[in-house]
């Protein structure tokens, strides 16, 4: 089994996540897309850990999960706050900071 396959899968998932960030307006879905990108990175880490025969890659993936959890907590709190004031979770509506 070619380990590159895992990396290719990670690349595809990452790209799909990035596309989701770019095309979706719902803040929650955008967030999910970000999570998807992080997961793609995790997959690459884990696959690389197996290829190199060390556990450091898995530790990195573990830390990514921790940081992602913290990020989700803060991000969702921000979304809730925005929703409370705007009655909408669309990130396009929060576009007053412009020219």
């Amino acid at each position, binding site marked *: 089994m070619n380990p590159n396959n895992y990396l290719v899968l990670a690349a595809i998932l990452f790209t799909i996540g990035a596309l989701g960030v770019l095309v979706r307006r719902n803040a929650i879905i955008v967030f999910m897309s970000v999570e998807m990108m992080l997961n793609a990175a995790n997959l690459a880490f884990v696959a690389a850990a197996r290829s190199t025969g060390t556990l450091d890659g898995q530790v990195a993936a573990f830390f990514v999960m921790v940081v992602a959890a913290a990020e989700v907590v803060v991000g969702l709190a921000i979304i809730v706050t925005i929703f409370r004031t705007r009655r909408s979770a669309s990130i396009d509506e929060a576009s007053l900071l*412009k020219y």
Partner: protein
Amino acid sequence: MTAALIGLPLFGAATLLLGGRRTNAWGHFFAVAMSASSFFVGIFLFIQMLGRSGEERAVGQYLFDWISVGRFHVPFGLHIDQLSMVFVLLITGVGTLIHVYSIGYMEHDPNRRRFFAYLNLFVAAMLLLVLADNYLLLYVGWEGVGLASYLLISFYQHKPSAAAAGKKAFIVNRVGDVGLSIAVMLMFVTFGTVTFEGVAAGAPQAAPSHVTWIGLALLLAACGKSAQFPLQSWLLDAMEGPTPVSALIHAATMVTAGVYLITRAHAIFDLSSTARTAVVTIGAITLLLGAFIGTAKDDIKKGLAGSTMSQIGYMILAAGLGPAGYVFAIFHLLTHGLFKAGLFLGAGSVMHGMNDDVNMRHYGALRTAMKITYATFGLGYLAIIGVPPFSGFWSKDEIIHAAFGQNIYIGLATLLGAGVTAFYMTRMMAMTFFGEARWEKGIHPHESPATMTAPMLILALGSAFGGLLLVFVGDIEGWLEPIVGIGHSDHAVSNTILIPVTLLVVLVGAGYGWMTYGRRPVPVVAPENVSLLTRAARADAYGDALNEAVFMRPGQYLTRALVWFDSKAIDGTIGGLSAAIGGLSARGRKLQNGYARSYALTMLGGAVLIAFVLLLVRL
């Protein structure tokens, strides 16, 4: 005592200017009294001076330290010597006479008080000029007379021409004043002092080039104040002022300040032949130019103004001759001050009788209507053309004599000037007092009041006998010798030949003038179809046109070009740059649309670029 000379008229000016309308009733008498008392103080000092022997006659009066900065010390000190004394007597004497004359002349003027205040101010400033013991204090007086001149030329403020003439005099004088200030600065740099004594002592040790430059700067100053070529244009316009002003300031005293300056700075000019040559050249040009202008003027005052230029040209020329000429420059200055003031007062008297008409073509046959004026003007006329034994003869002949001693061409120029002077003065006499009456309707010429005729009579006496007195009683040469020295250059032409030749030239000039204007009728309207030379003379020898073409137009073009350059090139560059940046930002800011997704897209674009580059590097 010396300070009182200046203080009295200054007090008069201050009283009249600050006192306001309360002084209207007696202000003019007060001014006359101040001027006259100054004159009597002058007489007193003169008698005191006579009591001392030659070397001790110069006395100084130290008043206070004026400026004391580092190495730069300027005392406020007065200095009265034989040269200053001559001027003091001329200024206060003629000044007082003209004050008296003005009582009559300005009788009906609503601003009479102001006029007398300015006259007093002028006398004070002029006295400060001649009594200062250093060049910087002299500069103060120099500017003071400039101010008084400006105020008095534009005295009839309601006339735009008078206002313009005042401004013109002021501006042209500033050009000369720059020369004086440069000279003072150069003196300080070269000698470390600006006192007359210090400069005279230091001049022989100084670098010749410095001395020459100081001399040329002083000459520029003299040109401005004394209306010498090329700064002569203001004097003709200055005739817009009241006639007593023309007589006092623009004929007898202020315009001769340049001669005083050159004589006072003789230590500088004695050492620089270049500067002396320049002075003589300027004097010669101006004496011919002024006389030339005088021949074509129909305005009696402007004719006299041209004559003044010409006569000052004689003085400047004489001063430029060095020790051989200083005495005669001052001598001619004195006699000229007497007879020219008399002539101007006579002109004023004529105008007074002719309802302020200045055009000589409207005069004629006034000798019967104005007998006293005719007589005094006639004496002045004889004096100026140099008929012996009248005063002009003594001084002018000496200058011609000295000029021939210097250089044959200079001598010929002075001789020619004498002839032309005789011509235009005869023309003026003939057009004013002889021929048939060409008076306009409703004009009834009458003799002027006694306040006017009395000063005229006194000045006429001075014109007639001043020269004789100064030569035989006053011994002007011996009087001034301690100050400026006497140098007898080897005269190429002896006086025994020169005097008859000069008289012949004068006679030819006067005869031609009489033939042209005395024997033939004078047209009331100035003929249009005249020679180019006449046209040039009528246009003041194109002095104004020259200034306009050489200074004003290029200046205007320069400023216009600068304005254009500023608004188009500089503002265009700056404005264009800012507009370009503004336009760019106006478009660029559209990128900041506030959509987080857009920004994320940009980020991804950057990531694509980086990935592409990395791939390129690796492959």
